[in-house]
């Protein structure tokens, strides 16, 4: 980099910072969000949390029911993720440059990936809510669709990156497509693929709570019910359970990741 270019890039940084400051000011002006006032309410909010959101003996009675719903949510997330992973693996193979079967399927896979990924899970829940109503299928589908999009994209990249050279070599030996995929592409990409699936299980357990509130299923629904009944102690317990679950899942998947990579 010569001096001129360096000076230019310094200027770019300054301009960039100025733009961010202006944008922040404008957006708070438009939304009438007052930073100082917002900060001032924090102590009060914390006070409220400590006085109301406490797990009491009474709310502990509800624990079995909460755990049951929690288990339902976890299993739904795992099911949605694993089924989506299987579908995404095929879409990933079709979408990857090195393992594509034909151009039509390749474009199709990439289309599915971008459509389902670029619409947030919450939006999918609301759309599906209209067509399927409030039941567990809706929640499942919302997670499933978002996951297919994300995993397909991730798998395409993993496959592209990991297998180009060995695919060329095996094609040159006269190997068939399925031989190449099963003996070169999959073994090479498996750690990344599993890692992405674990990541999605984690994400989906988190998302499932939110999706559950919208679609009336699982732990999210339980949360919603207690919340509307103003039973804040039970809400606190539900939240605590979710947090603990997410932490445990996180630990497990980190451990598994360490073992496979």
């Amino acid at each position, binding site marked *: 980099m010569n001096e001129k270019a360096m000076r230019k890039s310094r200027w770019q940084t300054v301009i960039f910072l100025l733009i961010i400051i202006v944008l922040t000011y404008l957006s708070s002006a438009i939304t009438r969000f007052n930073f100082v006032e917002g900060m001032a309410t924090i102590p009060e909010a914390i006070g409220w949390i400590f006085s109301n959101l406490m797990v009491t003996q009474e709310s502990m009675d509800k624990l079995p029911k909460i755990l049951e719903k929690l288990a339902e949510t976890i299993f739904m997330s795992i099911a949605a993720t694993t089924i989506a992973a299987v579908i995404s693996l095929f879409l990933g193979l079709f979408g990857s440059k090195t393992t594509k079967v034909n151009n039509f399927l390749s474009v199709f896979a990439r289309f599915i990936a971008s459509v389902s990924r670029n619409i947030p899970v919450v939006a999918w829940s609301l759309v599906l809510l209209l067509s399927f109503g409030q039941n567990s299928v809706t929640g499942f589908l919302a997670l499933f669709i978002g996951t297919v999009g994300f995993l397909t994209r991730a798998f395409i990249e993993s496959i592209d990156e990991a297998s180009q050279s060995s695919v060329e070599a095996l094609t*040159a030996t006269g190997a068939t497509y399925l*031989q190449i995929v099963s*003996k070169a592409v999959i073994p090479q990409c498996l750690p990344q693929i599993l890692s992405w699936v674990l990541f999605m299980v984690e994400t989906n357990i988190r998302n499932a709570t939110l999706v559950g509130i919208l679609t009336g299923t699982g732990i999210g629904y339980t949360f919603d019910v207690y919340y509307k009944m103003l039973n804040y102690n039970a809400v606190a317990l539900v939240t605590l359970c979710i947090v603990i679950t997410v932490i445990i899942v996180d630990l497990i998947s980190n451990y598994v990741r360490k073992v496979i990579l």
Partner: protein
Amino acid sequence: MSLLKIEGLGKSYTADKQILKNVNFEIKAGEFVSIIGPSGAGKSTMLRCINRMVEFNEGKIIFNHQDVGSLNNKELRKLRTNIGMVFQHYNLVPRLTVIENVLHGRFGYKTTLQGVLGRYTEEEKERAFYLLEKLGIHEHAYKRCDQLSGGQQQRVGICRALIQEPKLILCDEPIASLDPSSSKVIMDHLKSISTEMGITCLVNLHQVEVAQHYSDHIIGLNKGEVVFRGEGSELSAEQIQKIYETNTKDLIIE
């Protein structure tokens, strides 16, 4: 009797640029032939036309009495079992073991199912170990390939090509990523493959001296055209200049 005959070969990836132009040559069985030429001359493209990893547009390639251009998918697969390939970057599956990578060379002879299930006969396994021993890497047979040095990985690549029991081995810059001593080991192995096993070798090389030392014949390629064809000793400074379009003293020669 020639094993490989190339007549009027032409190739272009895009309409505006012809990569190979009217290439003609013949290679006899058991010969060791090098292709030299500057970067972008079309050496890799040339090699890949022979086993149709790249589809050519004009001309004819006759390999082992077969017209390569006219083969359907099944026949092409059969043809490829007879042609081994060795790459600059080895192109192994890094996470798999050495022995698994060598056995990959047998896929062409198997049904899809046999390959997917990884069914290999005793003879195939014995042959794989025999080849690893021959190239001096049998003690690494159960190591993962990503734990091997470049030179060792290239020897695995050669084993994978040899277990195909090919008539011809195509090598695309097999020593371009290796240090001089590993390069010598690899070139010596390739040479002995052609002299002892009678397998024809067609090797893309960047080093003129290496080509002169090892080859029975050298083909000089420039901008997709054959500008030299002859024995290593016939390659004069003038001819090198014609191939590389620079003076010999401007070339780095090891």
